[in-house]
């Protein structure tokens, strides 16, 4: 993670997509407990299309690549998920601009831009039992770990961030849902974690593992 280039970004996006598709049913089930059960479906439809068009994405810059992913998600995924996740990728793309590689600080800035996009589009604050409640603390931890510099290309930092995301997702159980379809369950939403937050945890975990493998391969090759 010294300087992440397009292949690294491709790996991350592909990993997110594959994880979303592999967990379609699980994410739906989570959403069914407090929401309306379509979260996994919407997410999978969006990322299916991402993989379908993947080869033809604009690769002129990291920003162009991420924006294209965002457009595809927004255009194909329904529900609240399409606009929110689409906006996240669009904003990350805008933050990346026409860079060909990203510094660790760039990565954090890009993630912050994504979070800010979700916040603006959906109007949610922290503590309202949404994916933000897993995403924001994970980015905080990542920023802290990366701040002092890393020697392993960020493998450990990503693992830590993933663990934080998972724990934070778990912790949404005690929150009362105030956003999205889940909010209608009111008090009844207490006791089950937010589907979006759990998805962030699962995806962060898969990214962390994929990144570790990717780095391992690279060091073998070098």
């Amino acid at each position: 993670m010294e300087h992440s280039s397009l292949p690294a970004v491709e790996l991350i996006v592909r990993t997110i997509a594959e994880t979303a598709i592999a967990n379609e049913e699980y994410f739906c089930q989570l959403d069914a407990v407090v929401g309306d059960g379509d979260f996994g479906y919407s997410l999978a439809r969006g990322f299916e299309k991402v993989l379908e068009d993947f080869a033809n994405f604009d690769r002129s810059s990291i920003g162009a690549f991420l924006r294209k992913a965002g457009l595809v998600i927004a255009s194909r995924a329904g529900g609240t998920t399409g606009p929110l996740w689409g906006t996240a990728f669009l904003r990350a793309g805008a933050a990346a601009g026409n860079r060909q590689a990203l510094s660790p600080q760039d990565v954090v800035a890009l993630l912050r831009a994504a979070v800010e996009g979700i916040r603006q589009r959906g109007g949610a604050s922290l503590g309202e039992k949404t994916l933000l409640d897993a995403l924001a603390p994970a980015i905080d931890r990542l920023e802290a770990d990366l701040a002092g510099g890393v020697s392993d290309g960020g493998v450990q930092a990503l693992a830590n961030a993933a663990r934080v995301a998972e724990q934070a997702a778990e912790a949404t159980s005690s929150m009362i849902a105030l956003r999205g379809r889940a909010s209608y369950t009111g008090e009844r939403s207490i006791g089950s974690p937010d589907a979006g937050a759990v998805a962030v945890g699962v995806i962060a975990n898969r990214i962390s593992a994929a990144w570790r493998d990717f780095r391992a391969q690279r060091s073998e090759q070098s």
Partner: protein
Amino acid sequence: MSKFVNDPKQFVPEMLKGIALANPDALRYVPAYNLIMRADAPSDDKVSIIQGSGSGHEPAHVMVVGKGMLDAACPGDVFSAPPVDYVYETTKLLKSEKGVLYLVNNYTGDRLAFEMAAEMAEADGIRVRTLVIDDDVAVSGSTHTVGRRGVAGNFFVMKAVGAAAECGDDLDALVALGARVNGVTRTMGVALSSCTPPAKGAPLFQIAADEMEVGIGIHGEPGRRRAKQVTANEVVSLLLDAVVSDLPFQAGDRVALMINGLGGTPIGELYVLYGAAHEQLASQGIQVARSYVGEYCTSLEMAGASLTLVRLDDELMDLLLAPAEIPYRVF
């Protein structure tokens, strides 16, 4: 899953194809965007009215496209807001000099999709205004930052602005009219059973055979409380209490009363509810001047019903009585 379905993922497109085949002259179907539009739309003399939402609420909204109602509907999958793309492409196809009116039921997913689409369409020079419908009194109180849901009362907004648009009213006038109708429309529903989205293959939520969900949403979202089932008269009382006290409706009001079936309740039962509601309202001095009994906004095959009241004035009554031609019809 006791449903008539082929590939569950093709449920919505196949339904739309059926609607198109049944109405070859009046409607056009654009499969790429789940789009059902009037064959004679758009017209630069008329604001184009677009509604989109998750599917599974039929006849809303794909079966109410036609003269005097919607110009187009672009639904998402069952219970899922349409993707931004569908809304955006629909907007481009329905572009009119007089502008485009979005009717959006107040759910986060729908609002966000229409909001993003509006931004994109406006960047293309299309004039768009959005009217958010939120008639469901079940959702209230300070914790509900997302606000009230749009449910069966949206029929009255569509009917009124649809009729007014047919008369050539301009975009701002339609937004004002729609807001006025939404402002005097209140709904609450009750579910006696769950429902099963085709692609899910299992009931959306669990409810015991002798229970009901009071204040149910049209996507199976919970309402105010779970309770033991009570008699039809008692169901009407508790729906009316919530609806009447909310606006509030008062003695001397003339109203339209809708008993809307949620999909699995036969119309005979809806008329039992209607009779009780009509009489209970009369005893409060509220006069039902127009009745609507049947299915207007459903939740797949859910057993249940919602009750909507609309405070009428002469203008609104005229708009409700104006002719309209849509696929959803008897003859």
